[in-house]
């Protein structure tokens, strides 16, 4: 069964008018659909303001969606009773970017990583400590860490503590919001490897949010590319990274830094900057910066269509113009996220 199904998710933030009037609505996420299968990683990439962090917050239940549905193991989250909500919150955990901000400096590591257990389960002291030691072992920290404070650890070790806490309730899905961006270069590989080992061992699914394109290609089975609150491309990680189709994805990956001085990338000019999500451009939101812009792009919003083994929202790939309202998204997503598709990649 699909672990998490996000369907047509919308999150708008109303902006109050200031001293000089104004106000409006920030369209942070505007109709995004994707699925996460058990044991798989969906990577979300995009630049600031594309809505990737808002999407993560809605999945974590930290923000209520404006509209759209989230189904976890088939059950619509909105219809869940209190106990169901509680089960959902146990099953979905998070690791954030800054391990200096996400750990309470006045709590010992043992208390930090077992706090979720204490909150959710009735356990004796001895059992809690035992769990704590097992969690530390899982993330590769020595036993004596249990009695130390966060300031006694380096950035990489703190991120291990944050991962241990996320694992405490044996979740099925972990939201990773830029988990290695704040770490030193030589430490990043340790954490990425640890996350992949844990996934293989515990069958975890990840929603991996980052702006590091190479890391997302390394970690993910499926990649979702977002631009101004919209999904523009969604498909197998290797295919999206090596043969991007949407003009924005192409420009994004062309702008990625080379790993060798002789590596040459396709030159995809990308003029200007991301428009404000307060007033996104009509039609395709990317048309103001697109090198392949056509006349219809500023009028019609391109649907997500199935092309070359993935979904792309671009008129270059869409069927005949003016073919009526578009419907096939659910169907296309269904065939895309069938097990044979998602297990095909080898990240």
């Amino acid at each position, binding site marked *: 069964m699909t672990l998490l199904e996000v369907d047509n998710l919308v999150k708008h933030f109303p902006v109050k008018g200031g001293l000089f009037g104004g106000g409006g609505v920030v369209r942070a996420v505007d109709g995004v659909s994707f699925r996460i299968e058990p044991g798989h990683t969906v990577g979300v990439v995009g630049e600031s303001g594309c809505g990737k962090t808002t999407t993560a917050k809605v999945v974590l239940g930290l923000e209520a969606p404006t509209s759209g549905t989230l189904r976890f193991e088939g059950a619509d989250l909105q219809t869940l009773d209190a106990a169901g909500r509680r089960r959902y919150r146990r099953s979905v955990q998070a690791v954030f970017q800054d391990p200096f901000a996400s750990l309470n400096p006045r709590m010992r590591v043992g208390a930090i990583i077992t706090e979720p257990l204490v909150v959710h389960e009735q356990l004796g002291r001895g059992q809690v400590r035992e769990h704590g030691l097992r969690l530390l072992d899982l993330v590769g920290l020595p036993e004596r860490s249990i009695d130390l404070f966060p300031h006694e650890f380096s950035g990489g070790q703190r991120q291990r503590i944050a991962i241990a806490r996320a694992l405490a309730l044996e979740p099925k899905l972990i939201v990773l919001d830029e988990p290695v961006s704040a770490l030193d270069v030589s430490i990043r590989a340790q954490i990425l490897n640890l996350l992949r080992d844990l996934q293989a061992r515990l069958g975890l699914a990840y929603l991996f949010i980052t702006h590091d394109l*190479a890391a997302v290609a390394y970690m993910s089975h499926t990649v979702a590319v977002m631009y101004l609150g919209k999904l523009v491309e969604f498909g197998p990680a290797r295919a999206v990274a090596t043969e991007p189709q949407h003009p924005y994805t192409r420009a994004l990956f062309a702008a990625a830094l080379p790993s060798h001085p002789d590596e040459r990338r396709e030159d995809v000019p990308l003029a200007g900057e991301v428009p404000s999500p307060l007033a996104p451009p009509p039609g395709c939101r990317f048309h103001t910066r697109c090198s392949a812009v056509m006349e219809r792009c500023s009028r019609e919003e391109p649907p997500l269509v199935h092309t070359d083994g993935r979904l792309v929202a671009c008129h270059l790939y869409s069927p005949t113009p003016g073919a009526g309202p578009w419907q096939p998204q659910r169907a296309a997503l269904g065939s895309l996220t069938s097990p044979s598709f998602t297990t095909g990649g080898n990240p």
Partner: protein
Amino acid sequence: MTPLLELDHLTTRYVSARGARVVEAVSDISFRLEAGETLGIVGESGSGKTTLALSIMRLLPPAARIASGAVRFEGEDLVTKSDREMRRLRGKRIAMILQDPMASLNPLFTVGDQVAESLRVHEGASRRTAWSRARELLTAVKIPAPEARVREYPHQLSGGMRQRIVGAIAISCEPRLLIADEPTTSLDVTIQAQYLNLLRELQREHGLALIFITHNLGIVARMCDRVAVMYAGRLVEIGPVRRIFDSPAHPYTRALLESIPRLADSRARLTAIDGQPPDLAALPTGCAFHPRCPKVEDRCRREVPTDVTVAEDHRARCWLAAR
């Protein structure tokens, strides 16, 4: 011919209030930089790369001192210059771009004022000339509608545009050397690519020498002619970019290159470097990298490696490279 910049056994130390603790953030560093060349300095946080840049600029915080060595710029030693002489040089012959453009710009002055300022100070230009030069400079850094932008304040601009303004200020007096300290870290991927292209163009047009301080080897691969790798305050390897990427001599450089995920990667696993970067106040004996080094030998634990020439223009501080 004298190089544009030559560091000769430069050592910079931080000393705590009562002199109880001494940290050597830059330790015995030597290299040369020719006119028009681009040198990347890579290292992790705490490796001393920013202190190295501040030593060259003589902008060290009060607790830091250049303990020994020389920084020769166009043949003259900057270490022995007076503060007054340094002020005349900074912004004119050597300019710097920092990571956070909002911290480099004054929020209370217009963009035009700030770009014109160094022209008025260093070249004694009149307000009118300086402002018209400022408009040209904004055009040079590809800011759309420069006529309108000169009258705006930094908060009215996006991050990418602010960093362009900082770039315009840096090149306003046509310096010979530009030091960029993580200039694109706060920018998005596509904006970063635009900015790197711009720096390239400016460098070509003005024959600038560029020192690029970064933790990102991708930026080095894209921008630099030569690369210097720092670890725990020491220069552990320096050489031409292609040579370092193809045949690194120092195990740390090799490990760094292998630990980075690549876009078209088929590797099943990244090669991680064990352990943590060391604390400069409590360095391991011998080679500072030895506790993390996969090829450690007895000698590495006892003696600090000497600077060895591996090939033409390629040096490394490692006992293995010495053989």
